[in-house]
């Protein structure tokens, strides 16, 4: 089996005249936990459906465990488990029955883990699905996914509707499965969740990959925000490569690449400071600017 679990290059999907995916790239190595980010309608769910072999790619290269998911969907599904963002289950069955029905084919269920997961997610398995809230339906799918002995977890906004306690349990579970060596593709809008769980991220917009790399690399791309109040008129900072500069009297704010920080701070400190706040690079800001399409 190929080391690259997911390999997508130049993926295009059109629905009529609408181009949902327009040359998207996505790759996951074995054991990687990758965040999959992008604004609403960017094409995340379409990509996931193509990976699951439910939707057929219009063109481009798509491989899952080295095979074409459209042709080999059933065999490939033995190795993966999937949680959609809006879980729809059989209203007449109980939550416990649904876990078993979902686990009956595909990656086999670990019965012990099924029991502990039901406890950890505080799920009543005897309740009918129609009586569950959205969050509880989501928990049914999560229990089924984490109890499955799968090599790949495909999670499409899996925590929508979960309370903060359950969100915490979810993070623990992802971390445990990753520690076991599972590969995880996590599509999410919760940036803190991605930052906490993922080692790599892919950001897409308008069906195209706009940024892909490790979280550390991205952090390197993000700029440090500096807010200084100087004793006298601030020194001329024009020689440095600064961004978002705002100067009002002795009050100076700007952002700067982390590598340039020490050089920029030197003249400021030498000129005398009333106060200084330096905020470390925030992925939020980077993500938001990528979502916006504002960053270069």
């Amino acid at each position, binding site marked *: 089996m190929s080391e690259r679990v997911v390999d997508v290059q130049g993926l295009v999907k059109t629905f009529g005249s609408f181009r949902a995916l327009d040359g998207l790239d996505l790759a996951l190595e074995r054991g990687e936990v990758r965040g999959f980010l992008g604004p609403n309608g960017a094409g995340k769910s379409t990509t996931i*459906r193509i990976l*699951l*072999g*439910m*939707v*057929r790619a219009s063109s481009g290269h798509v491989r899952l465990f080295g095979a074409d998911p459209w042709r080999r*969907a*059933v*065999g490939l*599904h*033995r190795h*993966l*488990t*999937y949680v*959609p963002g*809006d*879980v*729809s*289950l*059989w*209203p*007449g*069955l*109980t939550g*416990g*029955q*649904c*876990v*078993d*029905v*979902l*686990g*009956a*084919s*595909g990656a086999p269920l670990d019965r012990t883990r099924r029991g502990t997961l039901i406890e950890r997610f505080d799920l*009543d*398995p*005897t*309740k*009918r699905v*129609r*009586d569950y809230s959205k969050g509880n339906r989501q928990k049914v*799918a999560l229990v089924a996914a984490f109890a499955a002995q799968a090599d790949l977890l*495909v999670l499409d906004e899996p925590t929508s509707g979960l309370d903060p306690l359950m969100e915490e349990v979810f993070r623990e579970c992802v971390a445990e499965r990753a520690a076991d060596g599972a590969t995880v593709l996590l599509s999410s809008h919760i940036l803190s969740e991605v930052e906490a769980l993922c080692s790599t991220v892919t950001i897409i917009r308008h069906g195209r990959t706009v940024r892909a790399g490790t979280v550390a690399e991205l952090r390197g791309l993000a700029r440090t925000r500096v807010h200084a109040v100087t004793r006298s008129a601030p020194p001329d900072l024009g020689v440095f490569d600064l961004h978002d500069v705002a100067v009002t009297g002795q009050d100076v704010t700007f952002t700067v690449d982390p590598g340039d920080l020490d050089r920029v701070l030197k003249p400021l400190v030498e000129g005398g400071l009333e106060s200084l706040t330096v905020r470390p690079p925030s992925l939020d800001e980077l993500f938001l600017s990528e979502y916006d399409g504002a960053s270069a």
Partner: protein
Amino acid sequence: MQRGNHVTSGLDSVLRLQLRTGRVVLLAWVLGVVATYAATVAAIDTTYGSPEELASYEATVGSDPTMAAINGTPYGADTLGGVVANEFGFIAAVAIPLMGLMLVVRGTRAAEETGRLELLRSRAVGSRAPWLAALLITGGALALVGLGMAVSLVAYGVEAADAALYGASVAGLGLVFAGVATLAGQLLRRAAGVVGVGIVVLGAAYVFRAIGDVKDNGWRWLSPLAWQQETRPFADDARVWPLLLALGVAAALVAAGLVLVGRRDLGSAAVASRPGPATAGRALASGLGLALRQHGPVLLAWAAGAALVGAVFGAFTDDVADVVAANPDLQAAFSAGAAGDPTRWYVSFTLVLLVLMALGAAAQVVGRVRVEETGGRLEAVLARTVSRVRWLATHAAVALAGGALVALAGGAGLAAVTAGATGDAAGTLEATVDYLPAVAALTGLGVALFGLAPRATGLRWAALGYVAVVEMLGETLKLPDAALQVSPLHAIGRLPTEPASGAGVLVVCGVAALLLAAGLAGFRRRDVPR
């Protein structure tokens, strides 16, 4: 605070919304029913144009007890209106109640079940507003159908007063079932359950009306279908009070429903759910087990209904034989025509009815398969190691086997009860088996639509409606042979009065296999969900 009754506020906006989202369905119902009716009027006016021809109709078909069981007592069968009312009796008895039922459920429980109503209710929309809006729209559509029928009759020279009473009685029948939907809609949480209750009520109404008409007794008064029929618009003793009875019952059902909806929580129902097992048994965990679990209860209900209809209608066979024996005109008609032995003729009519029920059951299963996709569950299923072809084939097999079960249950009930009269229970059962390819053909059509054009899956109901019109009205409408042969039942033949056409059975089986294969192949190739 805004003045006004809070439970009905927002009525106008809900009304507009339901009209906008339901206009195609509304139009299809109204035009479909009125067009079929108008065509029937035109065809009968051609066939029975003179008073002599009308009198001969009354002497033969009009007093045929077979027709009394299937279509109802033909009052005023020596007039154009009376003949049409009789010929159209079965179609009206099925289509109008279903129309009242489905149109109400569509805008109310169905919307509530899927959560659409929740968002609407969060606006200034009272709890009763969606129900009132649906009832107003349904009432309006039924009034249009009644009006269209009356106008069709008047156009062919029927007295306006008689035509109006007929149209009103038909609309009244629909309103009773709109009322049934309104009350059942408060008691059950799922739209499919509400429709199911309505169909059970319709089945009971049909059986009670048939018992009353064949035995000429008071059982008929238990049936809303009889309230429509007993206005006798085209007979000399036309009367309005049965219509008032229908309207009164409809009003009472609606009132009870509207009181309940004002008292219950959104999304709740009187019938609460109980906790169930925490784990799935081995049977449920298999694809077939899950499919059986999903479709089994509905199919068993259909099968029980078919067995009941087969047995009850079968029990009239002796009455039919007696009436024919006592009527020389009828005897002459039977021995001259292709119908042959009257008891067999009657059995074949009942058998067609049972096969139509089987087709309905199979069509319903296909509909529930489509709901798996639109409801988002199919993705969770296909994300496992379940092949598309296998999944769809499993459900198609359940639809097919279920339809066959319904037909065989009905055929067995009919065969058992009529064994004495026909002396040929095996022949009746054999005829039922010969009709099974028709079940496969309709299942195949549904699967083909689902696989190739999923958004058009609803067209299978139109196909079923067409088959019903061909079987019940095809001869009357003088449809061209090609149009008749499209119905798989017609292609197989009129059983058991004539032997099954071997070529017909082969063609129907072939078409069914082709449609199934096309559906499976299409589903393999298309995107999910679509």
